[in-house]
């Protein structure tokens, strides 16, 4: 038993942290936040050159052949730095969807392209409010032409291709669709976190290629979401750490009533509670990371557990960091809201907290029954 990352993995994390702290300051994040660009293309290019999207792609498919643990430590740093890039959409979602759903020859042709960043992918599954319900999918395919409407598609406005959930003769499947064809129209949506932008995609008889692996679509989507949930939980704890650090620094330097604000018990205990929530989330995330890397049968429960506690911890840490800052925390000028917005955005994709709590309980009872 060893409940920690290896020295190699910690080295990768340190490298990632150093790179992002120099290349992805919050000043740079704000260029995307304030709409100067839809995402940070230059940063994304650097990230591609560092090979991060290739981390969990096998060498035979042009990847680095590292594992999910390495992807987890990178995720933590992307979350800490609020990197405004389509890493979630293209790596955790599109790439993993292809690994799970595509046939060998499809993987052989697409994964190398994703590994070297030839194109940015995204996942288009949601059509209505509430968490995804595969059975309710109305987007459909006839003769390899896909029609329908998808909403809340993460980075859907800038991605090159989308993995789209649609039904063909009543059977749900995943389809690769090039978003730069005339039969596809996209509308960027105003999002609570502009650095994780959403879009609505409309398909009108768009050319689509079915992912023809033999896994059942509903169950592979469930596995896909579990994998993403673990990776997201690392982005979330990275954000928790950053928010806590920000609050500590500010209140340690600021004085009220002739003493450091950070010396008041109300503030100290607030930070202690933020730390506790983050530490629980981190431990659950580690367990999820192990289950993911070991492809352990406990992954579904571990993923739901990691996700629920990461959502709770980031909401608490990001909102109480604002609170600890007092009035300045409510200003656009201070960075507090960047974490708060990110906490909201990360908690809502893949279905919000109540949805994952219910999944957690179902899975807990299933294991108990087994």
């Amino acid at each position, binding site marked *: 038993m060893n409940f920690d990352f290896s020295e190699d993995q910690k080295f990768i994390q340190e490298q990632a942290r150093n790179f992002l702290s120099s290349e992805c300051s919050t000043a740079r994040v704000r260029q995307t936040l304030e709409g100067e660009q839809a995402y940070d293309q230059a940063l994304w290019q650097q990230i591609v050159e560092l090979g991060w999207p290739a981390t969990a792609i096998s060498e035979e498919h042009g990847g680095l052949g590292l594992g999910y643990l390495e992807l987890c430590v990178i995720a933590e740093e992307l979350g800490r730095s609020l990197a405004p890039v389509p890493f979630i959409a293209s790596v955790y979602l599109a790439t993993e969807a292809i690994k799970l759903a595509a046939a060998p020859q499809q993987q052989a042709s697409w994964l190398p392209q994703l590994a070297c960043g030839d194109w940015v992918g995204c996942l288009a599954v949601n059509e209505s409010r509430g968490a995804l319900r595969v059975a309710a999918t109305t987007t459909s395919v006839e003769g390899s032409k896909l029609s329908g409407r998808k909403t809340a598609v993460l980075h859907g406005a800038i991605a090159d291709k989308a993995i789209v959930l649609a039904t063909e003769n009543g059977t749900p499947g995943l389809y690769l669709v090039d978003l730069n064809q005339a039969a596809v129209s996209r509308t960027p949506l105003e999002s609570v976190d502009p650095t994780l932008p959403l879009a609505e995609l409309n398909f009108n008889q768009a050319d689509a290629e079915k992912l023809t692996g033999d896994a059942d679509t509903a169950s592979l989507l469930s596995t896909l979401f579990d994998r993403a949930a673990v990776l997201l939980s690392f982005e979330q704890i990275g954000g928790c750490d950053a928010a806590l650090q920000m609050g500590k620094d500010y209140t340690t330097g600021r*004085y009220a009533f002739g003493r450091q604000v950070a010396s008041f018990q109300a503030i100290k205990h607030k930070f202690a509670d933020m730390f506790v929530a983050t530490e629980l989330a981190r431990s659950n995330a580690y367990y999820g990371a192990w289950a993911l890397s070991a492809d352990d049968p406990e992954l579904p429960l571990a993923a739901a557990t990691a996700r629920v506690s990461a959502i709770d911890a980031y909401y608490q840490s990001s909102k109480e960091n604002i609170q600890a800052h007092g009035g300045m925390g409510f200003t*656009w000028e201070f960075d507090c*809201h960047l974490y708060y917005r990110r906490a909201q955005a990360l908690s*809502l994709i893949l279905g919000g907290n109540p*949805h994952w709590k219910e999944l957690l309980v179902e899975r807990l009872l299933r294991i108990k029954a087994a």
Partner: protein
Amino acid sequence: MDFKDTPEQAEFRKEVQAWLKANATPKSKDSGRGSQEAAYDKAKAWYKKVFDAGYACPTWPKEYGGAGLTQIHKVIWSQEVAKYDEPDGYFVIGQGNCGPALMHFAAEEQKKALLPRMASAEDVWCQLFSEPSAGSDVAGLRTKAEQQGDKWIVNGQKIWTSGAQHSDYGVILCRTDPDVSKYRGMTMFYIDMKQAGVDVQPIKQMDGGSHFNEVFFNNAEIPDSQRLGEIGGGWGAALLVLMNERLAISGVQPDGFPEFFELVQTLEIDGEPVVNNPVVRDRLATWYTQHAGIKASTNRMLTAVAKGGMPGAEAALGKLVGAVMNQDIANFALQLMADTGAICDEAMAPQKAHFQKSVLFAPGIRLAGGTDEVMRNIIAEQVLGLPQEPRADKGMAFKDIPSGNQH
């Protein structure tokens, strides 16, 4: 105990209802949060109408432009006007905070001249207390006023001033003696906001809006006749103003419940209204007990005031409870919408994206007018009589108090 109107109150309510029916704008279905700036001119016009009809500042004496009625009449007015799409409590800071200060400290001719124009919103007033280095510790303020003959020269910066950009006058608290302990070296004035030397800059908030301002004073002038209270007596005067502020806001501050109650009945997931979800019902019950409790507490407080009592520090509880639940409600509402909850487009998100906007505005409500932590201190010390923290700055001359990285 009677939660219904007395015959006289019922009479007043009927009269108010009739007048509103004839003069006020009906509510439009799911009207979202509007921008304060846009509503401003509309609000001024509306208040003039209210004033002319004699309903402005119901509790103020008639000679100062009020209606000479009780707090209960004011409640009735608020309940009725709330049914319309008209701003109530828009000028709450001027009328709720500055007005009482003038009534208490200003000379009779000043009251006669200024208060009616404040009541009719012809003159708009703001309150200038907070500073970048004096938030929770208001008494740490540094904006200084130096006496020159019969006037005072003001230099410094105030912050979080609502409506400063619209204001004609402001009630300002200044440091007039840095050599005595911080609570003894302050003096309160009212100042002409339209003069040179007063520069108002809007603050961009985390939600993108700008309800608040920074105000810079550069050799601005105040005639000594506009001093409110004794030189060095500013803190006592300020406490009186803040006490009235808590009473003024405890009625009008949003707690998020009514909008949430509407949402859960209209939002459908899987074709089912979410109100059928027992987890939603569980939250709904808890938040309703708080919502109802705040309302009833405010009314109990007003009863006490109507009986001649002072507004007590209990008012802090409505602010504390309402602000926290307002944020948690907004967060929970987005969680119910799941992936689409992050969409802020008014056209797509329920209730014109009320909850998406509220998630981003809610943190400010927990900070403005005293943070959660300050509210708890006030309750602990002023209501429960618990001992103060040992004071690090006790007995120090203001200029000697450690101040760290203040800017």
